[in-house]
């Protein structure tokens, strides 16, 4: 139980500099001053900001995964080491803290890449960098169990 404490204090990330983009994209695109008579770049097609993979989507599939995880929970021994990202298919999360940062970075890349409609221009440098990290999107129903077994 107490083990999670440090992780969580790290989770309050105040990032005022480069890389902030991920958590404030919707402010940059939706807030700030506009001048009605001026042209504004078209943002049509931008799918703004998805917070990690932790979105609790209302779907049968999600419900069944939650149920499975719930049934698997051993409240005596297992103090909640199954994280929601794992449940939602986040893959093998070894260090939640570090991984989260990386995942956040990936998501920005994703969102923004969608926003720019695929890399058909000089953004190739960023693209390459992002694509080097293998994406793990495969359903990972059992990863939580595996991880605990490995650690036991």
């Amino acid at each position, binding site marked *: 139980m107490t083990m999670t404490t440090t992780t969580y204090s790290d*989770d309050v990330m105040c990032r005022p500099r480069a890389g902030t983009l991920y958590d404030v994209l919707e*402010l940059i*695109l939706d807030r700030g001053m506009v001048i009605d008579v001026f042209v504004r770049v078209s943002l049509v097609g931008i799918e703004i900001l998805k917070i990690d993979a932790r979105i609790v989507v209302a779907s049968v599939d999600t419900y069944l995964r939650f149920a499975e995880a719930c*049934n698997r*929970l051993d409240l005596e021994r297992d103090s909640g080491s199954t994280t929601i990202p794992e449940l939602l298919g986040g893959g093998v999360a070894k260090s939640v803290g570090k991984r989260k940062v990386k995942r956040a970075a990936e998501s*920005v890349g994703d969102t923004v890449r969608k926003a720019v409609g695929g890399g058909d221009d000089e953004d190739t440098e960023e693209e390459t960098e992002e694509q080097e990290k293998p994406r793990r999107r495969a359903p990972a129903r059992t990863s939580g169990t595996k991880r605990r077994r490995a650690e036991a």
Partner: protein
Amino acid sequence: MADHGLYVYAVIRSGQPLPANTPAVGGPPAVPRILREGAIAAVVSDAPPQLRARRRDLLAHQELLLALSEDGPVLPMRFGVVAPDEQTLRGQLAEARTRHLATLEQLTGRVEFNVKAVAAQNALAALVREDPEIRKLRDDARHRPGYAADLRLGEAVAAALARRAAEAGTRVVRELTALAHAVVAGPDVQGCAVNASFLVDRDDAERFTATARQLALTHQERAELRVAGPLPCYSFVADQAPAPTAVM
């Protein structure tokens, strides 16, 4: 020269300098400059052709605003505002001068913090421990396993996680409001139980961050807090002064 118009980053006071070595939008990056019109000024650069919300350009916009914020109050523009030409922009600045100066005055020495609450990472065990209804559904699903039982359980879990995150987020917003001059609800973000921006004295920024950290610990089994800041005051430049407690 500015065939594609002038990209506008911010409105500032005329006396404020342009920070050195700041990137502007475009590839290759344009050079930002200041367009002074009486007591106020606009920070602009030539707009690139085919401006879109690229990562590079979003970052340039944000970085330039952050750098500007170091030296004085800034009215940040939304990403992607382009004036057709210098004359039109000057006309607009002159026309809105009084309003802009008033807002600049209001934002002097203040920064924005954005706080989001999403369902907590380790929420599941805590939820099952603390919620009798979930426990009952879980017992049902164990004793009489089946698709329907699992579906009922899973649906209840999803709803409960979202509800708990929202409740915790609301409490956090209430606590943090005490440290802020104004609070506004942020735009809807999928997966976010709460999204709120706070206008905070720059001198109070550390205290705000420390308090947020403490609250994150307190509510860790219900919500995960994501705090960003200090930021340019994106959410506090509307023409009308924001209502002090417009969030909940």
